């Protein structure tokens, strides 16, 4: 299948990416080229193959349920674009 202008706009919206109207044809061309490359996967039959998520088939470790992290709010918020009274500020979302 081939992506058109509206597909690219939809994907950009899902990804929360503002892209310039004028660059959409370029993105559509590049994304289609990449998808054409990716389509080569369909040449192989994988019906009987189990998917591989981790090269060593490891599984998640469990640990004791104890506090390991200390409160570093000030340090972490010192690199935030906008904070006030210990909270992150964003444009108003509730009227």
């Amino acid at each position, binding site marked *: 299948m081939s*992506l058109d202008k509206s597909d*690219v706009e939809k*994907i*950009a*919206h*899902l*990804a*929360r*990416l*503002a*892209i310039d109207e004028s660059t959409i044809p370029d*993105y559509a061309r*590049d*994304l289609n*080229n*990449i*998808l054409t*490359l*990716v*389509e*080569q*996967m*369909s040449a*192989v039959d*994988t019906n009987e*193959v*189990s*998917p*591989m*998520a*981790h*090269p*060593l088939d*490891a599984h*998640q*470790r469990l*640990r004791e349920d104890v506090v390991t992290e200390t409160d*570093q709010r000030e*340090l*972490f918020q*010192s*690199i*935030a*674009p*906008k904070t006030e009274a210990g909270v*992150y500020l*964003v*444009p*108003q*979302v509730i009227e």
Partner: protein
Amino acid sequence: MHNKTLSELSALLHNGDITSVELTKHFLNRIKTHNGNLNAFISITEESALAQAAAADKQFAEKTAGKLTGIPMAHKDIFCTKGVRTSCASKMLDKFIAPYDATVVEKIAASGMVMLGKTNMDEFAMGSSNETSFYGPVKNPWDIERVPGGSSGGSAAAVAARLTPVATGTDTGGSIRQPSSLCNLTGLKPTYGRVSRYGMIAFASSLDQAGPMAANAEDAALLLNVMSGFDERDSTSVERDVPDYTANLNDSLEGLRIGLPKEYFGEGLSPEVAVTIEAAIKEFEKLGATVKEISLPNTALAIPTYYVVAPAECSSNLSRMDGVRFGHRCDDPKDLLDLYQRSRGEGFGDEVKRRIMIGTYALSAGYYDAYYLKAQKCRRLISDDFQQAFEEVDVIMGPTAPTTAFKLGDKTDDPVAMYLADIYTINTNLAGLPGMSVPAGFAGGLPAGLQIIGNYFDEARLLNVAHRYQQVTDWHKQIPTAFQ
């Protein structure tokens, strides 16, 4: 001073022939002289480097210094360094001061090494030429009109020009090995899970792995000794003892079984590079190894599979860059959606946006089975090929990259052509295997690397194989004229 191995530098420091402050200043001066041309460093941390060097000298005075104490190094700017800008070569993180150290940074600092600065790279490690960096491309010291490879291009150029004795890199699809090949270095991507990913800014979490970039195999072994090990802060880190990677460097290669995958020597490989690699293989036969042709039949699936897995994981990983908690934020957002969209639209470069969009599409409702799940199945096939091969051979050899360094700008208009630069390296990442690139000679005056791939946790053997080769060849000792 800048042409010495880590062991030689260590001996000089321990004998009191030079201080760490003197050595550090020597490399800082080289960076100041050459970085304008090469653009290998994004940040030079002179002040903290001299402080670390002074602390190292104190350890020498107190006789508490270790093997690597006082020796300078550089980190790829993908590793979080507390109090130091960690940009990942993106406008998004141009002003990001990491609030903590990556485990790799912590371990290397604990060994007493001195960080000279943070090296340039492709933005978020997405690229094979170092041309996607927000801070501009890195130049290849062998020919400054050519790329150093990527994504660890800054680390590669910095070690190749001897602006630092060693550097760290990361490898998601070839980002340590391909630039090592293009810049005449010895670079190793360890087994997935060998080195902690904590504090290493994530690109594709199931593929990313950090490793050393060095002038020779012994140096790489010494750095890998320090970088490796289990870390409970990385859930994919493997609980397994770390051997001394220098212990077996001199083992004989008599009887070593080398496999040459026929798929690595076919169409697409530059004839000049092929000649170089074939000559390298002959050296191994002289060292007592046996060579046989093998097949990795699903090799052609590697790039298509990778360009689903890596973008899918990156689209998820990079969703944390939202303009709220850290990183770039647009001016005057009119609402929350506008804040997200414009902050991300302005903060990310073109290649990053392309990959986020491919990944978003592949993971969107209705497409998961056709793309990500299919790719994970292809990944299994690729991995099975290797396991079958390792029943017959000990290591696999071939070219690291299909060509030598290409010209800046040659492939920037065609993402798919750029992707093919990693055709021989990507499948190792998909399988999670360790792989290495070793200087194997020159084609048209430019370096070409031999790739050596081993089975899981066989890093010591790869280093042994590389080291023995470096005892009978001197390709790795070649330094570009302008930087001798």
